[in-house]
């Protein structure tokens, strides 16, 4: 009897903690350009911009997160623009003046479909200099900073609209878990993982309870 109580109470407590975790809200990513965020690689003077190509602009994006330094002062306005290979602007946004240096979130117009081969430009639209983080050197990549071109890349994290709980994000996680997996499992892996874990827990609980009197 004690074992049943401990098992039931313990699993219930786990379920409660699990639900609390699932309800935690935060900003969630829609993608990233996979560039290590190791150092400030581009220093931009007032009015200058840094541009790089080959960016994958993911679907369901409403903001972009970048690490920007402002030399200890309140940040100037920063504009970011995403352009397709045909030159059409896919999305853009502005970070208003007064931001604090570090990881900043620049809201952009909502992107509903993914596009690759995108050119992204980040412009210092104010009167003070800024520095943008990424990787330098990053062989094979070209970053245009003002008039110069260097082998570097800026780090961009693409963010979904608003703040979401893990529970709200679950459909997206399930969808993402179908990528880059064996064709034999990719469409049902996430369901199977849940079912298997429920099975493991159920079987373990049953075994512990059955063995109590032995």
């Amino acid at each position, binding site marked *: 009897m*004690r*074992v049943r*109580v*401990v*098992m039931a109470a*313990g*699993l219930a*407590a*786990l379920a409660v*903690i*699990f639900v609390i*975790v699932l309800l935690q809200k935060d900003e*969630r*990513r*829609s*993608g*990233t350009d*996979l560039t*290590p*965020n190791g150092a400030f690689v581009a220093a931009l003077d007032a009015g200058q911009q840094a541009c790089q190509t080959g960016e*994958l602009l*993911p*679907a369901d994006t409403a903001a972009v997160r970048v690490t920007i330094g402002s030399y200890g002062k309140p940040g100037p306005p920063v504009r970011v623009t995403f352009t397709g290979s045909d030159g059409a602007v896919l999305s853009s946004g502005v970070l208003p003046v007064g931001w604090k240096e570090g990881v900043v979130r620049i809201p952009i117009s909502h992107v509903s479909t*993914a596009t*690759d081969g995108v050119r992204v430009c980040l412009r210092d639209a104010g009167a003070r200099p800024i520095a943008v983080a990424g990787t330098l050197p990053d062989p094979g990549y070209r970053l245009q900073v003002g008039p110069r071109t260097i082998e570097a890349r800026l780090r961009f*994290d693409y963010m979904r609209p608003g703040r979401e709980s*893990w529970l709200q*994000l679950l459909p997206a*996680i399930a969808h*993402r*878990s*179908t*990528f*880059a*997996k*064996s*064709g*034999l*499992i990719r469409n049902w*892996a*996430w369901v*199977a*993982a849940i079912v*298997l*874990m429920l*099975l*493991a*827990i159920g*079987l*373990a*609980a*049953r*075994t*512990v*309870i*059955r*063995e*109590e009197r*032995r």
Partner: protein
Amino acid sequence: MSAVLGDGAPARRREVRDADRLSRVRASVAGALGSVPRAAWACALVMLVNGLAWSLITPPFEVPDENAHYAYVQQVAERGTVAHHALPEGMLSPNEDGTLGAVLFYQMTGQMQNPAPMSELQQRSVEKVERERLSNVGSGDALSATNNPPLYYALEAIPYKLASGGSVLDRLAAMRVLSALMAAVTVLLIYLFLMELLPARRWAWTTGALVAAFQPLFGFISGGVNNDNLLFVTAAGVLWALARTFRRGLTPVNGALIGGFLGAGLVTKFTMIGLIPAVALGLALALRRGWSGQRGRALRGAAWATGLVAAPVLLYLALNRLAWHRGAVPGGVGSVAPGAGVDLKFSTGEELSHIWQLFLPPIGMHHQFTYLPLWKTWFKGFFGRFGWLDFKFPYHFYILALVVSVGVALLALGELVRRRRTFLRRVGEFAVYALALVGICVEVGVQSYREMIQTGGIGQFEQARYLLPLLGLYAAIAALAARFGGRRWGPAIGALLVVLAIGHDLFSQVITIARYYT
């Protein structure tokens, strides 16, 4: 005609005798399997489904060195030979290399801020590589796995071949299933080990086996292609066979089990060398015990043990020399030369100091680590550091884990104190398990020091998974802790430990999902 009949009669008798022998063996195997409690099978099944869940959650090649182990299996399956060093180093097959690129392996590994592919466009790149039908033949180099013995890879070649019509990812998925099966066998053997080690309390065996089955680092490794998975089977088998021997004497069967598991382990991964001193001590104690009453039986048992260890190892050494044209022990033993530009020199004194400091706080020694490996590498690693060691729990989790661990250890210690008379009677057996722990630690320490000399301290060899061959002892601590509660409270303590292990495993999977898919 009569001559023919005359010749045929003994042959028929031999056939009948052989058939009798075969049916006796079948009956004894069936009897042995039938005597395994249903709870043991249930614990193994729990591990199987847990391992399969981990294999589905963890993205391809994100279990440590999975790319290298895959390359070794590919070499065995495609060319029928072992891996060997080739220049330029690291030339994998175009198919594996292309797949690694498409699944973003090179961007994800070690970069915890980079998730697995999140976009349909990235999936299209994977499918493009799959359609290209690139060659499965590489240079023969299997990166960090190259020097390993081949048993695990030979077994993994079976699912590789079964899925050979598919892509690299299909083969990897099939190979991961075999790893999960091996983990299930490990848990079965751990249950059997606990049966022999701690008789009379069945619920304690279940507690220990399930705590092992839900150990998340073990689950994570069991969901990937890594020769550690067979190492864990063989190490658990050695512990079981030793415990059987202490309980039932050194019979030929027990000797064969000890030798068979140790021999198989040695041709799986050299870490198994660490168990040799414990096995030697165990055999010596068992021989001494059987010397007066059942000397012949004990000697036959020891002969089986020695023979079954020696046979695969000698065969492996001979094949290395004669057929595979690589050193008898690839990678070598003993001192190593420092790598280019490395200022360190191999010193036996420093090596001993290194081994000590790798597991214990330094006492009057030149500090070789800028951190405390006992805490950072072993404790935190064992309780939760996943992927290519690139993500873990928040710091407070480890403090909580430390508190729980100290509590469990105190309960286990309390049980030993309470049963001190029995413990003192079995102190020799305890010394064998302690020596197993020391042996594995020394073996890992030796490898770690070699790595430090070769890379000037940049390369880090040691990982908490190297202690998982001793998972049976971890399970024994949990079982002992549960037994401390006695008949009245023991099962409830056991149930609590199992719930904690389930929670630990589940939240490890949660941080894994968060790491790769968000």
